[in-house]
């Protein structure tokens, strides 16, 4: 079972590597969106510092949603998903593998580039550390919840917009606790409460989302 998981991750990473442009689009979207705000609202450090957590989190959230459409759609179109359904390995394991690969290619790069972007908002060092931690815990939840949306809208016309409508409300708690953690740190409060709640969301979605997404995939392919 673990072998199947590792293999699906490796396969998706190989495919992502062969289509590097798709991965870079997500990353550049995040960088451009968060670079536009300081240009738009003006260079006042205090204002930028208060806005930074929200902007970076919203940027990461939208960027990670950008690539959700590709999560299952390509495998659906070329028939690979059918073969996954007929595999002797459980579908939820394969879905977990696909979600993990999605996070590695579209979530992790955002996390790694975020500290650099935080500098242009004049965030202090400890706040950047909390931002990094909150994104590290939060972005896998985005991929997990997004997988449910992507699976539910598979094969639907205008699925891209529908995913946003389905998934964005579910992203609200992650945004609140993620940006809240950085905000708390900025105001000299303890941010561990927010991070623990994010961790709880990660644990719950890791347990439930692959199962829900594979149920949705079975329905989509029937």
């Amino acid at each position, binding site marked *: 079972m673990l072998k199947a998981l590792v293999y699906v991750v490796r396969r998706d990473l190989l*495919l992502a590597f062969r289509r590097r442009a798709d991965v870079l689009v997500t990353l550049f979207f995040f960088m451009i969106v968060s670079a536009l705000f300081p240009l738009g609202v003006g260079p006042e450090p205090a204002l930028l510092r208060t806005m930074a957590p929200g902007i970076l989190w919203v940027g990461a959230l939208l960027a990670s949603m950008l690539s959700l459409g590709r999560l299952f759609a390509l495998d659906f179109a070329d*028939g*690979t998903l059918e073969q996954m359904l*007929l595999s*002797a390995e459980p579908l939820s394991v394969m879905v977990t593998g696909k979600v993990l690969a999605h996070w590695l290619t579209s979530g992790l790069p955002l996390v790694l580039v975020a500290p650099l972007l935080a500098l242009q908002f004049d965030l202090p060092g400890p706040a950047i550390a909390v931002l990094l931690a909150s994104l590290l815990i939060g972005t896998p939840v985005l991929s997990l919840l997004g997988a449910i949306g992507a699976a539910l809208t598979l094969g639907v016309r205008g699925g891209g917009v529908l995913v946003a409508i389905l998934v964005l409300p579910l992203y609200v708690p992650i945004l609140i606790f993620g940006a809240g953690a950085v905000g708390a740190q900025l105001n000299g409060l303890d941010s561990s409460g927010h991070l623990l709640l994010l961790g709880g969301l990660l644990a719950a979605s890791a347990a439930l989302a692959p199962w829900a997404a594979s149920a949705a995939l079975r329905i989509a392919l029937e």
Partner: protein
Amino acid sequence: MTLQACNLAAVRGNQPLFSNIDLEITAGEALWLSGSNGCGKTTLLRLLCGLSFPAEGQVNWNGDSIFSQREDYCSNLIYCGHASGVKDDLNAWENLQVSARLAGKSCSQKEALEALAQMGLASFAHLPARVLSQGQRKRIALARLCLQPTVRLLILDEPFSALDQQAIAAVSQRLNQHLTQGGMVVYTTHQEVALQAKRLHRLALNRATPC
């Protein structure tokens, strides 16, 4: 080792597609599904695979419903549908390896290359699938049948479409070999390719009422 369908029925929208289909295949036997376009051949194959649920009736593998023993059934099954599952960005042998691994079987590069050679793709094995023709992509999908160890049941939807005479001969030779080894084949085709099975069942799905 039997595949059995009792009283199967399927609907498309509100219209009944077929009903009261009973069939039973045992080791060494083949089932040739024929019928006009849109009469439900693919639907019946998908029901037999367990990809969709029948409106009525059930499909049994060794006497039990396939849904109650999915893992066991799936490890004994290869399904080749219309969508070949071939990725443009991977080359031919990688595609074959991926589809074998996803099915839960091991497949080394050497085994993949040998299977591709049997399908006449030896000199194309290292090319990305995006530069290959439709027929060559179909051959990649069908090369799974040449991998060892073989499974018991092959369900093939139009395996001979887009293939040239040589490839058709290679595939039917492989299927005959599979049947003599005690395997089972369920296939649809519009071409007259009769396999040398212990018993070749033929089921014509033509509907009583035109659509």
